[in-house]
């Protein structure tokens, strides 16, 4: 009898929907149907059925081909390569659970590596602005229950977070927003008429790259001063009208995305957005939230901030303390300056999503990809180690875009012999300790690693 599993979390975008239902075969090895998810989530779950999924690590041979090796061989090679490298870079973690992120930190410390996550090419500038200016944010539940004016600035949830609008921001009926969309006014600020802009009541078609000016214009208007006839391609009257809508809101919610962080200004755009939020709080209640891309990309920010004090771009090469300085210790900058001599790609695809010149620089040195499937990084790697898919055949804690932790469950049994990220990193760490004749340092939660002969000890 196929089994319907309810309350499943979707390991795709930052909305981290936790109302998915998955129908699995009675032996719990195949996913038959996926309910409630968007097309991307549905494809993701079904892709786990792919019979060609790798079950063994693959090592690049001198002739350029890939040959399957055993897990112990792969772990040994990875441990030795990491120890040999002067400054390895461990990057990724958009698509894995917090347990894996915590485990990799042991390796990074041991190897004296730089630890970075996908935020570095995504919401990294938002972190910088948040350090400078604070983060007057809330949870998505508050947005759903309270927000009657929703602003989408440089983000396109209809494409990047397909169920965001129906679960949290535009359509749902909440405690103070019982009429759902009818009660909400939606503003969209985007240089294109995106599918989100088509949903909006007001679309301000900004000149691309002029976000800072428009944020500033809004602040100027809110403070009662006059602005030029057009700012960033938007007529004065339109800006005043939009500012008035935000000001008159009962609860204004600003969501911002890659349109602000990928373009000129970077963190300064977000800085201005946060200042606008603060200014709006003089008139009404206003909150702001980054549209984080992956289901657990807020995770490394939480886990590593707890472990090292920094969310991303963490340089552990000094051996004595962690050091963070984006621009210097960020993945793409390190790659372009040829400062790293080993690259580990975990749960992301730097091969496809880094500018190609950064990939070319990284490929000069040992290149390790840890990914459940074949991707561009795995196809150029010297070593590809497959792992289980977090949220599909491996459970774990994830942080949603509003930094709310959610326990995701596994819906099918993992491929036999394939470890999770956490297990793999623990094994690599143990091998590194063996090679250096040192004792592994385990946290209390890892008591079963410390005393392997009596796994019940906690």
């Amino acid at each position, binding site marked *: 009898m196929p089994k319907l599993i309810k309350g499943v979390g979707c390991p795709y975008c930052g909305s981290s929907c936790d109302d998915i239902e998955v129908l699995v075969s009675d032996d719990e090895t195949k996913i038959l149907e996926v309910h409630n998810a968007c*097309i991307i989530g549905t*494809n993701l779950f079904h892709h786990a059925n792919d019979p060609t999924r790798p079950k063994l690590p693959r090592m690049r041979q001198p002739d350029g081909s890939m040959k399957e090796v055993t897990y112990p061989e792969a772990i040994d090679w990875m441990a030795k390569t990491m120890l040999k490298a002067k400054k390895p870079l461990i990057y990724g973690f958009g698509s894995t659970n917090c347990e894996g992120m915590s485990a990799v930190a042991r390796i990074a410390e041991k190897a004296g590596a730089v630890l970075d996550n996908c935020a570095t090419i995504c919401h990294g500038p938002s972190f910088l602005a948040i350090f400078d200016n604070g983060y007057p944010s809330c949870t998505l539940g508050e947005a759903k229950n309270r927000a009657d004016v929703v602003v989408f600035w440089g983000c396109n949830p209809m494409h990047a977070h397909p169920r965001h609008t129906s679960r949290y921001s535009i359509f749902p009926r909440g405690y103070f927003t019982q009429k759902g969309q009818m009660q909400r006014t939606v503003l969209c600020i985007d240089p294109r008429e995106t599918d989100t802009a088509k949903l909006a009541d007001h679309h301000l078609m900004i000149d691309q790259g002029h976000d800072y000016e428009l944020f500033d214009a809004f602040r100027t208007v809110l403070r009662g001063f006059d602005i030029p006839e057009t700012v960033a391609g938007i007529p004065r009257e339109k800006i005043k009208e939009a500012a008035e809508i935000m000001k008159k809101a009962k609860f204004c919610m600003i969501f911002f995305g890659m*349109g602000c962080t990928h373009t000129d200004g970077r963190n300064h755009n977000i800085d201005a957005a946060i200042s606008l939020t603060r200014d709006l709080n003089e008139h009404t209640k206003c909150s702001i939230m980054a549209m984080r891309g992956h289901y657990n990309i807020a995770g490394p920010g939480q886990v590593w901030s707890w472990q090292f004090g920094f969310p991303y771009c963490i340089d552990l090469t000094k051996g004595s303390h962690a050091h963070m300085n984006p*621009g210097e210790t960020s993945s793409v*900058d390190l*790659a372009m300056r040829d400062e790293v001599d080993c690259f580990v790609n975990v749960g992301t695809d730097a091969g496809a999503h880094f500018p190609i010149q950064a990939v070319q620089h990284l490929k000069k040195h040992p290149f390790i990809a840890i990914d459940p499937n074949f*991707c561009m990084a795995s196809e150029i790697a010297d070593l590809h180690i497959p792992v289980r898919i977090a949220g599909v055949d491996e459970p774990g804690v994830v942080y949603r875009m509003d930094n709310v932790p959610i326990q995701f469950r596994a819906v099918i049994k993992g491929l036999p012999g394939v470890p999770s990220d956490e297990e793999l990193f623990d094994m690599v760490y143990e091998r590194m300790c063996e090679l250096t004749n040192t004792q592994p340092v385990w946290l209390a939660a890892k008591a079963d690693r410390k005393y392997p002969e009596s796994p019940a000890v906690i």
Partner: protein
Amino acid sequence: MPKIELNMITQRSIEEGAAMEKGKTNPDYFDACSICEMHPEDMKRAGIWKNTNVRVTSECGTVIVKAIMPTQYVPPGLAHIRQGVWANQVVPPRTQSTGTPQYSGFPVTIEPAPAERLKTALELVQGAVGLWKGGQ
């Protein structure tokens, strides 16, 4: 051959996301990402027919993609390649000291290249690092 200077942005789309989750070597990913959207007026100025191949050149690279009519309206002067392997052939790695490359808002030159062939994702990435063995 006429050329046109446009401002390039590379952003997500649901077609790209849905195809990516099937696998980056899947034909759907090729169809979803090896395209460039631009305003019909801009296409006319550069002598580009819709659904023909164009060469996009930025300060740091060049890529062949298929010019299509915008699926989401793009104003004149702006061009959009969906995030992915093709877009990243031309994305400048400069980060303004923040770690984030210039994925959006960089100048490109677009010219018709109807006789050129679109490369697959694997060919582009493996080719860039000297591992491409198959095809031309």
